[in-house]
């Protein structure tokens, strides 16, 4: 029984890990393509989810601002948009955002050190956070695109018949796992086997050299940020469904960081494998050790696990070897 329970914890850990991976993927894409550590990824997920809800519910963007500036009360257009259409529209918004980011930020920072670009994404994160709130309001929004939630009875029944103990698996998690698998397969294929994928890796290595062979940084960046925006949207949908769309959604980025470390900043499969290991590790640790030391170990455990791992493999599981030459 104890053993089965541990397995259940592990399975749920794996599922939680998939949810982290969804966020980590966005980081990896951008890092791989521009060497930029995109701190704004979490906020992008929040922004995407807010926009999605806003569109679905037919909210008027900037209602609050319009109210304050012109004294006109507006809140809703009075229509609703079906989920699929809204998702497409939101994806378009994310592409627009990518174009703007390239135009207003990245373009001017070509060739700067990574830490400077990192800082710029922090500025971006603040801006987007403020913008999201001004556009759609800071209330907690309910996001329902029709994904199922709650215990999967099938799994419970089958495992009960089979093992005498019904496992708890959330249906939302099962969906997340399937979506993540599809995303990863598509992205890996793209990065390794297409011309644009190769160009993207070239850009990550050396901006100047990439320019010199005629790779348009602009195009690559817009492309990658758009894809990352889409990934953020997917992460936003999953996490938003789980716990509502609100400020805290942007903090899931913190859950994705140890995943990145473990998997390697540059590896798409690494994001998934890292997520699985972290998810499983932290749940099992909390289960076996957490109760002995007072609980709430999950936040730091993931980082410590990743840290210990890095000591042995400084580039993460699948990260590119760090080239050390003189």
């Amino acid at each position, binding site marked *: 029984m104890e053993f089965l329970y541990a397995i259940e914890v592990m399975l749920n850990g794996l599922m939680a890990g998939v949810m982290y991976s969804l966020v980590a993927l966005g980081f990896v894409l951008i890092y791989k393509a521009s060497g930029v550590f995109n701190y704004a990824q979490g906020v992008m997920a929040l922004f995407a989810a807010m926009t999605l809800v806003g569109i679905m519910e037919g909210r008027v963007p900037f209602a609050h601002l319009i109210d304050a500036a012109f004294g006109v009360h507006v*809140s809703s257009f009075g229509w609703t948009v079906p989920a699929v259409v809204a998702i497409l529209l939101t994806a378009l918004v994310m592409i627009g955002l990518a174009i703007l980011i390239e135009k207003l930020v990245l373009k001017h920072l070509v060739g700067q050190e990574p830490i400077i670009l990192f800082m710029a994404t922090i500025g971006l994160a603040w801006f987007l956070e403020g913008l999201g709130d001004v556009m759609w309001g*800071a209330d*907690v929004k309910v996001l329902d695109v029709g994904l199922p939630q*709650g215990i999967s009875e099938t799994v419970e029944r089958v495992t009960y018949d089979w093992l005498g103990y019904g496992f708890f698996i959330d249906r939302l998690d099962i969906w997340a796992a399937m979506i993540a698998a599809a995303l990863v397969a598509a992205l890996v294929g793209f990065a390794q086997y297409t011309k644009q994928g190769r160009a993207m890796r070239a850009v990550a290595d050396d901006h100047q050299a990439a320019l010199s062979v005629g790779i348009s940084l602009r195009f690559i960046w817009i492309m990658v940020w758009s894809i990352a925006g889409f990934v953020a949207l997917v992460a936003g949908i999953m*996490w938003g469904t789980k*716990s509502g769309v*609100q400020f805290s959604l942007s903090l899931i980025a913190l859950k994705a960081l140890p995943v990145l470390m473990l998997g390697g900043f540059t590896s798409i499969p690494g994001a998934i494998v890292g997520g699985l290991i972290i998810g499983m590790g932290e749940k099992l640790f909390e289960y076996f050790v*957490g109760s002995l030391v007072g609980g709430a170990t*999950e936040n730091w455990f993931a980082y410590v696990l990743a840290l210990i791992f890095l000591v042995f493999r400084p580039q993460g599981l699948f990260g590119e070897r760090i080239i050390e030459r003189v």
Partner: protein
Amino acid sequence: DLVVPNLSYRTGPYGANGTQYADGFNDYFTLLNERDGGIGGEKVQTPECETAYNTEKGVECYEATKGSGALVYNPLSTGITYQLIPKVSADKIPLYTPGYGRTSAKNGKVFEWVFNAPANYWDGASVAVKYLLDQNGGSLEGKKIALVYHNSAYGKEPIRTLQELSKKHGFSLTELPVDPPGQEQKSQWLQIRREKPDYILMWGWGVMNQTAIQEAANIRFPMENFIGTYWSGSEVDVKPVGAGANGYKALTFHGVGMDYPIYEDMTKYVIEPGKASQGGQFVGSVLYSRGMYAAVVIAEAIRKAQELAGTPQINAAQLRDGFEALDITPERLAELGLPDFGPEIKMTCDNHGGSGMARLQQWDASTGKWTLITEFTEPDQEVLDPLIVEDSEAYAKEAGISPRC
């Protein structure tokens, strides 16, 4: 004019909660100004300052507003309250923290400037246990209760009390901390699923609440056995979960909904003329009501202070006297248009926390409304009083305060 700063937070991790509270607080004073021309003929100003639930911004807001003759502070944050306790003592300005802040501030002998009536965290814990006792015919012997709490100063507050109560009533207590923000609680809920506690109490705030309620629904925990504290029982916590949240219970120390006469005036003087904070979109919600209730108590204390001082132009020290002589009787509440909205509040020099009475409300997902399911209940003072004395005296010693009264 009377200045009552509103240290609110409408942004940041808890912005969704803070914004409703701040609206209620503002609107009540607007009502007084519009309808009665203020209190005792003096208009009330509520300069608002955004703290984002951040302690340093809280300090900044305090410093920025205190110069303008601030009478009382109500920051809606336990962290900021702790910051402000030494400051208000030095500056001699009352601090009113209904249902949050430092519990042992109930002891007016040590905390001269802090008031937390009608109820505090420990009262809540005790009332919840009393309710469960009632449900179980007076005995919790052998029952299992799990406490899911926000892993912070705030969330840890009820632990001592609950431990004492568990000794007294013979139930077992499992503590399950959740690190803020609390979007990922799988481990805690798997543990609950395994240990199958009879009841769950929750001390949460912000996104942690709805995630917990969602997870409880996911593992099909019977919602009626799941009780949240005051701050885990607002619409934002249950609505995102939808039908799954039906039957969830929470503590409260005031009434809910709009079935009170005061809302006629509120509509007439505040909402319809477009003077409501944020257009009045949250009127009647739990947190709005709570913000309004805090304003009601402050307004009554001001009235009392004016009476004692013999002038409408009171200062902060006079307001403290007003608080200490405050007695909001049920009749007075009815007069204010809020019959049976809150318990009777009676404060004295040594009791800054009132009676500590609280009640329970339950969520009905189909109508989207909270309904009150118990009367105001008295907490177990026998257990609480010694704890309060102990904690406040420790503070007095640390801070070198000699008890008054």
